[in-house]
Structures are given as C-alpha cells and as structure tokens.
C-alpha cells in the first residue's frame, strides 16, 4: 500500500506543482501574488473544454486555450497590473486585492455565461488503468506528470538559456536597471504573463480531465493553495515550486492514508508551510540556488 500511496502523492503533488507554476513565474518576475492566476486556471479549463467539444482534438484544445488565456493575461497585465505597480508608494497588498477582485469577476462571469453546474470534461483515455504488479496507475496521471515535466523543462530552458530568461531575471532584480540595459521590459513582462497564464490554463485543462469535471468554482482551492506552494518553494523559484508541490502532495496523501482524518487537507498544506518557514524563513529553495 505504501508504494501505491507514494504514487498517489507524487501524482497529486504534480498537479499542485503544475497549478502553481504559472503563479511562480509571475511572482518571480513581477513580485505580484496573483490570485487571479487561479482564474486563468478556470478560464483555461473552460476554453479547453469548449475547443475540445467542437474539435475533438486534445492538442489543439491545449495549445489554443493556453494561447488565448495567455493573451487575456497580457491584457490584464498591461491595463490593470502594470499601471498599479508602476505607481509610486503602492503597498504590496494593492495588487493582491486587485487579483482577488479579478478572481471574483471571472468565477461569476463563467457562472453567468455557462451556469453554475458542474460540466463533464469528456476526454476519456481508452487505455484504462495501467497495472504494474500491484501498482495501479491511471493514464491521466502519467499525462500529468509528463506535462509537468515538459512545462518545467521549457521554463527552466527559457530562464537559464535564452535572452528572454536573462531579460526576466534583469526585470526581476530591478526593472529600471533592466530598462537601462536595453531590455524591453514591456515585452518581457507581457511574455511572462503569456506563459504564466498559459501554464495555469494547461493546469486547468489537465485537472478538468483528471476529475472529468469543470465548474465555475474550480479555481477556489488553487487560489490559495498555490500561494502556499510558491511560498514554500521560496517565492518565485520553479525548482522550489516543484519540490514544494511534491512535498505537499505527499504530506496530504500520507496523512490521510496513515493518520486518518485528523485535519482537513488545506490545513495540512499550511502546517507544512508554517513549519518550514519557521526553520527556514526564506522557503525551501532560496533564490541563489535557482
């Protein structure tokens, strides 16, 4: 049973890592705790569902939904976040409240347009569960782990091996200096939102497929659990986010499997977080080792 539970934990952890990846990127570059990233997750899931239902092409659903959601991200970044964070003397809570407002609007907009009911996602893997000895692995899980790995690799490559990554890191350090260095910070920020919201969209689709359901409130839990994960991971560090996602996924699974229902799952994530922060106030993986 332990092996199966570890597999379960890794799978849940990958979902968390995937979900938090977009928000991590945005935090890493713009220092915004963007709860609205969970709105992108819901929008992405709905767009993916819609595109899939008319085209029956999963790849197209993923790509188109990621691009469209990313573009929504750019618009939000350009017309809402950027003007806010570029004002002098703005306290950090202001963008956070803005993101809460955006999140509220999105959830309700989806509800008004498509109704509050849960919708079936409708992608079913024909292969059924894969059995390795006593281990049972669902095809969706493999898909999720692969997708997480691929997106993580893309992100790592961009951050460390491309000019764009350099521009992002410069923007993260100091956008004024980055500008002086000839970095086009506008484009750099826009791209970070395309990727950040695009990642969230892919996570939304993935989770929609995993549970075969999407609903207007599907972003509620990711909205705060994401925060726990990116902070646990050291704020804005993709490696840390993956590690943190896995830790929380495993902790939740093992606690519910071996200790019974001592605490609700949400609390477990935050207890892990508080515990780690007390030992290591800058998160699991601090910025330097990125």
């Amino acid at each position, binding site marked *: 049973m332990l092996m*199966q539970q570890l597999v379960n934990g890794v799978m849940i952890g990958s979902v968390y890592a995937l979900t938090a990846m977009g928000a991590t990127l945005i935090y890493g570059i713009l220092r915004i705790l963007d709860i609205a990233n969970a709105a992108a997750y819901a929008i992405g899931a709905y767009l993916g569902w819609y595109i899939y239902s008319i085209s029956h092409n999963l790849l197209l659903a993923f790509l188109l939904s990621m691009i469209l959601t990313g573009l929504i991200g750019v618009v939000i970044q350009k017309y809402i976040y950027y003007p806010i964070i570029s004002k002098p003397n703005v306290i950090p809570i202001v963008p956070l409240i803005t993101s809460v407002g955006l999140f509220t609007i999105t959830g309700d907009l989806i509800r008004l347009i498509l109704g*509050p009911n849960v919708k079936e996602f409708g992608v079913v893997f024909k292969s059924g569960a894969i059995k390795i000895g006593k281990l049972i692995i669902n095809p969706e899980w493999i898909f999720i782990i692969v997708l997480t790995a691929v997106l993580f690799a893309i992100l790592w490559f961009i951050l460390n091996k491309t000019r764009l990554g350099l521009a992002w890191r410069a923007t993260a350090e100091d956008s004024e200096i980055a500008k002086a260095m000839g970095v086009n910070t506008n484009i750099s920020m826009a791209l970070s939102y395309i990727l950040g919201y695009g990642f969230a969209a892919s996570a939304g689709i993935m989770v929609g497929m995993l549970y075969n359901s999407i609903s207007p409130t599907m972003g509620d839990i990711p909205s705060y659990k994401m925060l726990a994960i990116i902070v646990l991971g050291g704020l804005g560090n993709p490696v840390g986010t993956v590690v943190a996602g896995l830790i929380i996924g495993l902790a*939740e699974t093992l606690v519910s499997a071996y200790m019974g*229902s001592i605490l*609700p799952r*949400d609390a477990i994530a935050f207890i892990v977080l508080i515990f780690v922060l007390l030992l290591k106030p800058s998160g699991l993986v601090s910025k330097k080792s990125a």
Partner: protein
Amino acid sequence: MNKKLKSFVSLALAVGMTFSLSACQSKETAPAPATGGTQAPAENKDPIRIGFFAPITGAAAADGLSTSNSAELAVSIINESGGINGRQVELVKYDDALDTKQAVNIAQKLTTKDNVVAVVSGSYSGPTRVAAPIFQEAGIPMLSGYAIHPDVCKAGDFIFSQSFAGSVQGKAGAKVAVDMLKAKRIAIIQVDIDFGKQLAESFTEYATANGAEIVSVDKFAMADKEFAPVVTKLKEEVKPDLIYMANYYGHGAEIVRQAKSMGLNVPILGTEGIDSFQFLEIAKENAEGVILTTNMNRDSENESTQAFIKAYKEKYGIVPDMVGASVYDSFEVLFKVIADVGTEPTAIRDAIKGLKNFETVTGNLIEYAPTREAIKPVQVQVIKDGDFHYYGVVEDTEIITPPAAN
C-alpha cells in the same frame, strides 16, 4: 490640528452612520403593518407574498440555481392555474451567497419590509440556521427545503423541515446496507459538515446495532476532490464489503471513478447528496449500480411527480434533483395550507402542523413529527442505464419517525 480634525471626521462619520440607519429604520417600521395581509378583508386581491432565499452566488451556486428554479416553477404553475383562491402568488427571492451574515439581513428584510406570509429556505444549514430564530420571533412560518441541521427546527414552532431528519436518512441507509445488501464490513466516507456528520452517525448507530461492523471512517473537507489515497487504503487494507458515502455529487463522482479505476469492486451506497444529474454526468458509466437513499422516486406512478419532472425539464432543459424537488414540495405544502386557511401566519403554522397524508412530488408526506421534521418514506434508488430508478423504499415507522427532540 490635523489630527483633531481627523478624529472629529471619523467620529462624525460613525455617528452619522448610526443615526441615518436608525432614522431609516423608524421610518420603515412605523407605517408597516405587523405582518402582511393578515387583517385583509376576504375580497383582498393583492398578491400573496412568499419569501425565498438560496445561495444563488458563491460556492453552492449550483444548488442555489436548482432550488430557485423550483421556486419559480412552483409559483408560475400556481399563478397560471389562477393563483390561490383567486389571489396571485408573488415570490420574494434573495441570494444569501452561502453567507450567514447576509442570511440574517435577508431574514430581517423578509420579516419587516417585505410582508411575506411564509418563507421557504432553499439554502444550506448555516444560513437557514441563523435565519430560523428571526422568523420564529417574527411569527412567520419557514419551511426548510433540505437543510438538515438538527438545530434549525429547534428555533421554535414556526420552523419546519421539509426533508426527513438526517438521523432518519442515516438509519434508512443502514437498513438498506444491512438488510437489503447484507453488508457486514462497512467503510464510511463522509464530508465533514453537518450533513455528513449526522448521516454517518445515525448510520453507524443503526448498522452496528444490527450486526454490521464499521471498519473505517474517512472525513474530508467540502472542497476536497482527491480520493485516490482513501480508495487505495480501502482497497488494500480495509477491504470493506460496502462503502457508505455521506457526501455530495462532486465527491461521490470522484469516489466511484477512483474505485472503478483501482478495481475496488464493492457495492457503493450513497445518500440524497448524490441525487443530481451532475453526479450522473461526471461519473458516467462508473455510476452504474450505485444505490442511494433519497426523497424522490423517479419511477413513481404518482402523477404530480411525473408532471413536476416534465414541467421542470421543459422549462429549464435539465432534470430536477433532490434539492429542487424538496423546495418544490415546500411550496406545494404552503399553497395547500394557504388555500385552506388563508394567509394569517399563525393559521398557516397550525395548518402545516395538522397536515396529514399530503401527496407531494416526493411521495406521501405522512405528517410533521413533533420536532416539525417531515415524516415520509425514504426512497431507495439505483443507477441503471445512466438514470435513477426504483430499487426499494424504507417505510418502517420506527425508522422514518425522527426521535423526539433532545
């Protein structure tokens, strides 16, 4: 100087707020009659106002929509048929957003400003529970559609529950498990809110008293979606011969899906919480064979049941679920008693208390128990060919009568 001004302004604001509000209040309450339409002459043609609140926005919006659909449907049907004794019915509908603070405001508005003669709650236990004492104090009857918190009806003799008590359904479920399905080792998975807790407790009580063993209890939060760890544990360690799910359709669908993919092939018994087309839609073929206790028999010969399902489908394009049916029931009860005794709230209350063997869309409402919870047979349904079908019914008096107030 500046600081003085600041404190002055703030104080003025606070004072202003209170005074403007209390001023409004005196204006409002003075001319309004104590309760609406009570002393009205027999020829009164004013509409009869019935209050209704549900979580139309927020986390429970799906149930809010379902119940609010039912409420509108009930009112439009009665009005099309000429209203009650020639008077039209007007629905005063509010959204509580699943927030107790808003529910208190709404209850206060319904009782003091809207002049409703009775109220139906289409909301969860929290909002219904805080609203109940306000209606009790105002002397306006409230029927709670499906909120089964034991304290709702304890608010007083104006408060009724249209659903059977949680303990009734839990016991009925246990009877199904032990008698019909011959289960000996039962695992419980429960959502950790009043609904899950009450059902699981009474289920356990009855099942253990009748020879079955509860081999595990797993609780999870309302918003949880991930059941792989629990299903793995049940399959590899606990090995039950039946799973009792005291939870809602989202959870239920994921549990049956996981059970199927992990190869955990034991009977699964659900509750009214999974009585929704949404359960069928998400769980698909994995839902086949799941049995549940609920209030509406889809295969009923009862004319009004079939008529309700048909009318609901025609108007909204979806099939009604358990919460919708319960709220529809509540309105039917109100229409019936108002037609019999008029709109005086105390008379309405007495008439509800005296109601016996009233045919509703969820079957025969035998009567209201002294605890003012509805006594009616518990329907047992099975999911076959992607729909709910008749499996059995629990009618034993000792099971469906809620225990006296404790």
